[in-house]
């Protein structure tokens, strides 16, 4: 029987095992081979059996350093991975037409040092490319930062493996995503919601998500069936009785969460772990509603929970060490990365993001536009800017509701909300979107609203340079990060970078906000913050932690790498 032909990714050699096989063997070890002519003593690339200089019939492999510098380069705009087509001049002389990948391609200049980096290409076969030493160092740091998270002890790992029954309370987007993550980890899951239509919607969403995975070839049909078989839905909390693990994902309302936890505490067995997926509320106050606060903690999943690898494990003062260890081990069992954080508004990831969003909103009022602010962030290396991100995540509605709840008003947010500019799904938000397109387009209506917002606020708009935008967004994040360290919200500074890499797409070739601060030099960061403080106010006042590091000549992350 003939089966349709598919590209075979297992054959990684790009050509039939021929004369260039040694090239690819070396490539797998990251070594670059050129051809050397014994007659005219010259090196050539790309490899040919004969010498293209003197015509000598045979040449031999010669390993070269793989180091060189940029002879010329350009950039692929909006590439899925940073890509700078480049002519690289190797230390040994030959110029190679190639590309610099996975590095700060916006900062790349003629003469910059680069080194070889073989990467999997489209077909899965290795491809010859280059990267920068800075990007390599940041990747080394990123690996070290992940390793520094450590492993829960063997007993906790065993206990996590032994977990079989889980309950998820709340069948909204987060609840169904968390249920999918638990199913993928091999657990039996009961999804509980008092509303039938919510349960039905969740089941449809989950089935769709799973069948999408099957379509993409990432999941077999039988695995999908198995997962759905392990899913049960129920209308009341008593169905959580047999669960060894409960994750609550109901509406963000303290009284509601407290009542759920108080009831769960009575229903489940004494050893069950109780977790809240809250992203804004005090987990300690939730735990206090139970008789066993030592088994209560936060598990802050990121949306979509079945795909995002980061989970902030929120430790309340009352949380016991065994519960914390079990939670970390469980997150690992789900194939995710647990980062332990303390209780504060937004925890680690969102706290920095909210800081950035608020500053970005101020920049809008003072004279910048969403497309400029987002471009600066993309050029910095982030996969997207804050306004594109908010359009994707429905941030305008979230901010609108959050501000109303806090009794604050924001003219621009209210206008955008009132005009149905809710983001990508609505086809308009901070940008407009062509039907079926995800590419944000600047919108004159938004520009007019922003200009009016400035007038409403009595702000004289001015031209704001890219440098100012970059400094105000990223130095403020760095400063906020050092406050997290100061407040003991993280176990180590590099955890902040892990959170921003896994939760917000900060590229591993740039390390993370704390690593970036060290690259800038903390004294420099402090000086620039002080200048911003003088110009724009107290929110830029360098933190005590930052000042201490500068005084003592310490860095934030150097012990990590």
């Amino acid at each position, binding site marked *: 029987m003939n089966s349709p032909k598919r590209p075979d990714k297992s054959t990684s050699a*790009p*050509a039939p095992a021929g004369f*260039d096989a040694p090239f690819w063997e070396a490539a797998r070890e990251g070594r670059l081979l050129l051809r050397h002519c014994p007659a005219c003593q*010259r*090196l*050539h*690339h*790309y*490899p*040919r059996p004969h010498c*293209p*200089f003197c015509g000598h019939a045979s040449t031999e492999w010669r390993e070269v350093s793989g180091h060189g510098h940029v*002879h*010329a*380069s*350009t*950039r*692929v*705009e909006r590439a899925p991975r940073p*890509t700078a*087509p*480049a*002519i690289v001049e190797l230390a040994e*002389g*030959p*110029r*190679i*037409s*190639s*590309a610099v*990948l996975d590095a700060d391609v916006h900062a790349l200049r*003629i003469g910059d040092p680069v080194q070889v980096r073989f*990467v999997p*290409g*489209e077909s899965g*076969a290795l*491809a*010859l*490319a*280059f990267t920068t030493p800075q990007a390599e160092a940041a990747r080394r740091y990123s690996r070290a930062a992940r390793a520094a998270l450590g492993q829960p002890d063997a007993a906790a790992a065993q206990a996590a493996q032994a977990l079989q029954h889980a309950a998820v309370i709340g069948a909204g987007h987060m609840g169904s995503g968390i249920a999918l993550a638990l199913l993928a980890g091999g657990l039996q899951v009961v999804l509980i919601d008092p509303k039938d239509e919510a349960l039905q919607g969740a089941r449809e969403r989950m089935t769709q998500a799973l069948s999408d995975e099957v379509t993409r070839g990432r999941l077999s049909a039988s695995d999908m069936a198995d997962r759905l078989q392990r899913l049960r839905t129920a209308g009341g909390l008593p169905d959580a009785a047999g669960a060894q693990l409960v994750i609550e994902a109901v509406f963000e309302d303290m009284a509601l969460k407290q009542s759920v936890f108080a009831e769960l505490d009575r229903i489940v067995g004494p050893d069950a772990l109780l977790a809240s997926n809250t992203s804004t509320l005090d987990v300690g106050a939730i735990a206090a509603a139970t008789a066993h606060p030592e088994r209560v903690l936060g598990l802050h999943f990121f949306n979509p929970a079945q795909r995002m690898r980061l989970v902030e494990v929120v430790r309340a003062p009352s949380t016991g060490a065994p519960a914390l260890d079990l939670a970390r081990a469980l997150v690992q069992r789900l194939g995710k990365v647990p980062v332990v954080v303390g209780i504060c508004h937004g925890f680690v990831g969102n706290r920095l993001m909210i800081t950035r969003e608020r500053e970005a909103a101020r920049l809008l009022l003072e004279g910048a536009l969403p497309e400029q602010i987002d471009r600066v962030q993309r050029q910095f290396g982030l996969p997207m800017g804050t306004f594109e991100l908010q359009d994707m995540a429905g941030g305008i509605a979230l901010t609108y509701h959050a501000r109303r709840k806090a009794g604050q008003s924001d003219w621009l947010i209210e206008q955008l909300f009132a005009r149905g500019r809710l983001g990508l799904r609505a086809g308009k938000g901070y940008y407009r979107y062509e039907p079926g397109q995800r590419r944000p387009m600047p919108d004159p209506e938004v520009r007019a609203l922003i200009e009016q917002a400035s007038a409403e606020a009595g702000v004289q708009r001015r031209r704001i340079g890219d440098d100012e935008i970059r400094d105000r967004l990223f130095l403020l994040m760095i400063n906020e990060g050092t406050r997290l360290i100061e407040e003991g919200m993280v176990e180590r500074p590099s955890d902040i970078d892990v959170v921003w890499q896994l939760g917000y797409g900060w590229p591993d070739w740039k390390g993370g906000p704390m690593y970036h601060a060290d690259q800038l030099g903390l004294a420099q960061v402090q000086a620039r913050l002080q200048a911003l403080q003088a110009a724009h106010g107290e929110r830029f006042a360098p933190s005590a932690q930052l000042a201490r590091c500068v005084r003592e000549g310490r860095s934030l992350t150097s012990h990590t790498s």
Partner: protein
Amino acid sequence: MSHSGKAYIAGIYEHPTRRADHLTTAQLHAEVTLGALADAGLRLEDVDGYFCGADAPGLGALTMAEYIGLNRLRHVDSTESGGSAYLLHVMHAAQAIAAGQCDVALITMADRPLAAGTGTRLAGVDRNTLPNLPFMAPSPPMPMYGYAMVAQRHMHDYGTRPEDLAWVRVAASHHAQHNPHAVHRQVVTVEDVLASSIVADPLHRLDCCVMTDGGGAIVMVRPEIARRLKRPLVNVRGAGSAVQHSQGGEINLTHSAARHSGAQAFAQAGVHPRDIRYASIYDSFTITVIVQLEDLGFCAKGEGGRFVTDGNLISGQGRLPFNTDGGGLCNNHPGNKGGMTKILEAVRQCRGEAHPAVQVPDHSLVLANGIGGSLAGMHAAGTLILEAQ
């Protein structure tokens, strides 16, 4: 061997279409053939030499010979070198006529990448057979990236500015306003070019040529036939071609093969760059023009940026009017190969038949230059010096 005075361009035709949704490539080749023969005052049965590139569908020149109805061919040539192929064809046709291989040579070019949705690919060129393909980086193979690097290196080595590049586009737009067939007829300023989006740093959108369908044809004949035909006599006084590539690892971004093709053409014609009154210069990108002007000797290496500023390429005001049809930047760039249209406008100028608003007063000597392939990698340059007699 000089072929000056032994072969004349007698007929030309440029297809007016810019998007050929309802024509096949073969039909386009046939239409431009009939157009050029009519311009010359010749008929299909007069053609005994045929030249085409890989845009001609089928088997080299043979399929088109059959389709068009070239029934008494004795000389064919399917030289393919990208956009410069047609300059090489004119040179080869002049040589063939001078050598008695044929009397009436037809050169055709036509393609429809827009209608076919084939992007920047060259018709008939299979990238998958490139021997260096396995060693290339996972990066889009678009021509603009190579030219962006040429521009960056030129700026770095010689202090060329984005404004200088922009002046090339500005000059082309001044000419295109008079061409009713041009894709972009609006006159633009340096500021307009610099304000257009960056497509491949440092190149802006307006630094890039248009993409169009279309084509053109040229008829060349022996002197005795040319004199009988009551059309202005356009003598191929000098021609040259040269090839450059990555040279085993000695990539040279700022110097092109036009150094050699130009020197050859000028030597053969026995004239100097200062004698040239009009130049068709291949304009896939603005930087392409600057590099060629230097390599052809219109200015010293590195001076190209300064040479083109302040409208020096604009007909009626500048020292060297170029691409008076609007060129590839504004008029058309059929099949991603601008060589044919470069020759056509050079012939119009040489005949004194360009648009009156852009016709140069003294059109005794004109030049056309083409670059095929990529300046940043492998390319062939072809240079023609045409003389009005």
